[in-house]
């Protein structure tokens, strides 16, 4: 009889193979997924580090802009591929935009991951706080002689008409004497010859305390106006009681800013000879849009030139001892004049903007005399050159990620 093989023969093996295969396949796919998660974690780290590398490139580029030194000769702010840790790097291209503005594109790389960011940086402007009490604001006595006219009404930018009531003609923490044929106007009132306190055009014994608690700390006017955080609340000169201690303090900008700006503009002078040489090189006048800083004790004469500068300037005559004296002023000047002491604003002088003087004592026999004119102009003071430092900050104005390839 022929043997027939059972249809169940080998079934156990077949079933075992199928079950084993399914179990193994499930475990294998599970392992693949776990591996993928692990690889994903690694790629996430790479992508993040690539971004940090790109940001490192931006910061190094900003550093080069700050130094104003093109270290590699490839353009200011542009950097060649620079290693950043193991297997990482950044490459930067900086393109100059408007005045004091750069667009920085930085490519960061970590292994095979790449990220590129684009930022726009603009050189920082130091905000200036302008708070004028008068056409002439003085810490010490002010005496006017001869035919000088001081007008605190608000004159327009071109010195052609009065556009507002303005401020006091003169404000002094000390005495004011309007003598000779001199006249003072202000607070909307046309100049008055031999004005007195009753004419309401000047303020003598000016009180710089305003009785207001600006910082809401319960103590009004507790800060000296000195550029120092006297009450230790993290704010400087936020609630002052006194006359400002110097030019930077008056504008509420960091100490040394005006000097730094003047140095960067090539208009910082430590002697009368340097000033005279500069003026001669510029046709006998002082070009507008500048910050001039005269760091020597006596400037005499101070001749601004026969033609008024078209754009306003700031001229500072100040020494660290606070004893600078400007004497025998002539010519036409548009802008802000800040001096320690002033003696004799003379006959043909026109100053459009404002004058501030810091010396508390008398300087000579008169602040101004002759037929000079000093006029307040908020339009001129609003157009003073920006406090832009060549070595100053470069804040980021915009930031975005762009495709890396």
């Amino acid at each position, binding site marked *: 009889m022929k043997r027939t093989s059972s249809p169940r023969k080998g079934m156990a093996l077949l079933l*075992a193979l199928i079950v084993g295969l399914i179990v*193994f396949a499930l*475990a294998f796919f599970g392992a693949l997924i776990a591996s993928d*998660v692990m690889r994903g974690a690694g790629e*996430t780290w790479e992508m993040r580090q690539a971004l940090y590398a790109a940001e490192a490139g931006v910061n190094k580029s900003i550093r080069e802009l700050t130094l104003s030194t093109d270290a590699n000769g490839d353009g200011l702010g542009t950097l060649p591929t620079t290693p950043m840790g193991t297997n990482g790097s950044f490459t930067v291209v900086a393109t100059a935009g408007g005045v004091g503005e750069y667009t920085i594109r930085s490519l960061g790389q970590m292994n095979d991951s790449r990220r590129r960011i684009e930022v726009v940086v603009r050189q920082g402007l130091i905000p200036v706080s302008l708070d004028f009490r008068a056409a002439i604001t003085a810490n010490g006595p002010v005496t006017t002689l001869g035919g000088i006219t001081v007008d605190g009404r608000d004159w327009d930018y071109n010195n052609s008409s009065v556009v507002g009531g303005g401020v006091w003609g003169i404000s002094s923490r000390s005495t004011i004497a309007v003598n000779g044929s001199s006249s003072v106007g202000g607070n909307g009132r046309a100049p008055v010859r031999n004005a007195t306190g009753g004419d309401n055009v000047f303020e003598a014994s000016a009180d710089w305390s305003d009785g207001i608690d600006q910082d809401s700390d319960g103590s009004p006017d507790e800060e000296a106006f000195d550029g120092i955080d006297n009450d230790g609340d993290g704010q400087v000169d936020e609630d002052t009681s006194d006359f400002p201690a110097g030019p930077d303090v008056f504008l509420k900008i960091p100490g040394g800013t005006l000097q730094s700006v003047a140095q960067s503009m090539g208009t910082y002078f430590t002697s009368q000879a340097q000033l005279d040489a500069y003026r001669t090189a510029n046709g006998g006048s002082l070009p507008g849009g500048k910050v001039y800083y005269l760091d020597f004790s006596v400037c005499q004469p101070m001749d601004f030139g026969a033609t008024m500068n078209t754009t306003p300037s700031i001229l500072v005559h100040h020494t660290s001892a606070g004893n600078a004296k400007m004497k025998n002023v002539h010519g036409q000047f548009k802008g802000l004049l800040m001096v320690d002491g002033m003696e004799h604003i003379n006959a043909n002088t026109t100053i459009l903007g404002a004058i501030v003087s810091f010396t508390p004592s008398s300087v000579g026999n008169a602040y101004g005399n002759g037929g000079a004119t000093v006029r307040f102009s908020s339009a001129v003071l609003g157009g003073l050159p920006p406090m832009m430092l060549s070595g100053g900050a470069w804040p980021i104005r915009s930031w975005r990620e762009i495709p890396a390839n």
Partner: protein
Amino acid sequence: MKRRRSPRGMTLVEIIIALAVIAVAILGAVSLVSFSMGQDHEAKERMQAMDAAKSVMERIQEASYDNIFTNFNGFAFDVGMLLPPDGDADGRVGRVVVNNSDPELLDVQVFVEWRTLRGKTGLSFRTLITRR
């Protein structure tokens, strides 16, 4: 009398081989599952470490520039349940190193090192920060 083989059922050999196949498959699967769990655990730890390092780096980037070196160089921190590697000096898994050899361009590195079943592992982030 001649014994006849039953046409039904399976032989002992078949059953033994089938059990062996299943055993091998289960052993392989167990080892793969074990590997997967290890990978999953390590990935979670790595993500946790990365989040912590990222968070510290962001704090540094947002800090006042003048305070970065003083406040963050040598700064140490913990990360969840991660344990420091054996022999770690300060017993913390995270630390910050700020190199100020150029005081106006700080080289900032945030390290996280922790203990795993297979020894120690770690990650770090690095960037440069300047005054803006």
